[in-house]
């Protein structure tokens, strides 16, 4: 009779299934736990904006602000905590698209403004954005060198340049 084989197969099926599920959920739990406690230390407290959804994208590029290299410090940017900074020693592009400094700002263009290194100074230029870039509350026309303390505003986002 094949009856016992059939019953055995059913239980084998269930056993394999549950072992598989156990394995996956164990790994999944481990995954969750790693995120909850420790793991890679995340630079400044995860920023929360009005919507509670912070942009971890930018966290990767951020550092604690302890260095002395040229950097952009967040004054007020939707989605980012005040005081966080971007290292811009090598230059960077700001915008809403896939660029170095991603802005979650409805008024920013996808490639909004660019910082470029020219010898010892950093130069900012607008990349033909729709709503313009403001340097110390003046609309940027053509490339301008940056000085420590300069304020850069794009849409609702404001950064301070520090050296």
């Amino acid at each position: 009779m094949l009856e016992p084989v059939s019953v055995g197969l059913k239980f084998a099926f269930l056993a394999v299934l549950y072992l598989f599920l156990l394995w996956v959920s164990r790994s999944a739990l481990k995954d969750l736990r790693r995120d909850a406690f420790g793991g890679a230390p995340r630079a400044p407290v995860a920023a929360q904006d009005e919507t509670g959804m912070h942009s971890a994208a930018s966290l990767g590029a951020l550092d604690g602000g302890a260095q002395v290299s040229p950097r952009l410090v967040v004054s007020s940017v939707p989605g980012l905590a005040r005081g966080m900074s971007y290292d811009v020693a090598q230059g960077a592009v700001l915008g809403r698209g896939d660029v170095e400094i991603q802005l979650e700002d409805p008024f920013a263009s996808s490639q909004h403004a660019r910082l470029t290194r020219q010898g010892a100074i950093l130069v900012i230029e607008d990349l033909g954005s729709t709503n313009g870039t403001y340097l110390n509350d003046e609309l940027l026309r053509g490339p301008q060198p940056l000085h420590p303390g300069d304020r850069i505003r794009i849409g609702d986002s404001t950064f301070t340049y520090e050296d």
Partner: protein
Amino acid sequence: MSARNRELFALIPASLLLTAGFAAVFIQRDELLSDLSLTYGLIFLALCLAAHLVLRMTLPDADPYLFALVAVLACFGLVVLYRLDEQLARDQAKWFVVGLLFFTATILALRHDHRVLERYRYVIALGGIVLLLLPRLGSPTNGAYLSFSLGPISFQPAELAKIAIVIFLASYLRDTRQVLVVGARRFAGITFPPLKHLGPLLAVWGTAMGLLFVIQDLGSSLMFFGGFLALVYVATNRISFVLIGLALFALGARVLYAIRPTIESRVDAWLHPFDPELYNQEIGGSYQVAQSIFTQADGGFFGQGFGQALIRLGNETPLLPAAHTDFIYAVITDELGLMGAVAVLLVYLLIIERGFKTAMLATDSFSKLLATGLTAVLALQVFVIVGGVTKLIPLTGVTLPFISYGGSSIVANFILLALLLLVSDRARREAVA
């Protein structure tokens, strides 16, 4: 173990399951053990391996469990369909291959950056709505306009439309989520979105209601609107928006209940499945729901075993209608019992957990919202059909993702899986770096 090696390892139990399942069905049917089951298992493994290799080459960092979990669901589907009707299982296997081709095509097309989808959001949204309205040209099945026939192929456009609509909403909310919150006003303790931006939100609500009216299917509109609310909640962190949405939906559903007889009959069948009059009613009665409950009760704790569920008596009309599509969950419960049914739900639960995990890891808002939306829609689809079959909510005909028979469902869900893996690959790579 690297992500892809984990995935490879996880495919082994999936193929074992398929082999054991087929072997059990063969024994039941022919009273002889055939090595054909092993062949089927190996073919299945080969197909999964092919997809695995594509993932290995294109998305090395993508979530390791998603694909394996889906393979387990597909194996459930193939075994149960084979047990119901060999021809169905053969067709399903073909659709499985087609689904994997679409899966591969989606990954190859978007592997550099899935965010190019944002550029085409309005085209995608329009496509989604057209897809939803297509079935209206045909004739209704069981009172709902769900499928559309193009020559010999009949497909359910709602399956593809759900992906299109999620892509559109994710992209739209990425742009407006800040504005929705900043301009919000509090009134009577509830936060209302600014009037200017209420328009688009009301438009989405109107679309869901319109859909309910046009295709007369509560299940799919619940799925779409639920997905939308999940996205709004994640995008704005305002529970009040969700509550307002739910209230509006309930209101709309109540009105439609009053004016549409098909919806009314569904609700009656849900409330009183064992009422003799409703049970014996030819059209729109409660026969299906009642039989589904009997079938599940028959399963007990460990089930009757593969091939043992009583689906039809002799050659008469089937006891359990639509066993291969809507009621496949009832068949699984009958043959594998509570244990099997819970396992299926656990697989879905884990897929959803991986999906939300992907959304949490994702770095930019669009990817975050896309992963959330796709996962939410999938979860709601499982809820709508399993809830309907178990008489938790009124029954509506949506498929059980990856298990039910149906080409469009398999293809659409594989595209959904491809998108999730694309988001996951980028997110996990950035998280490690």
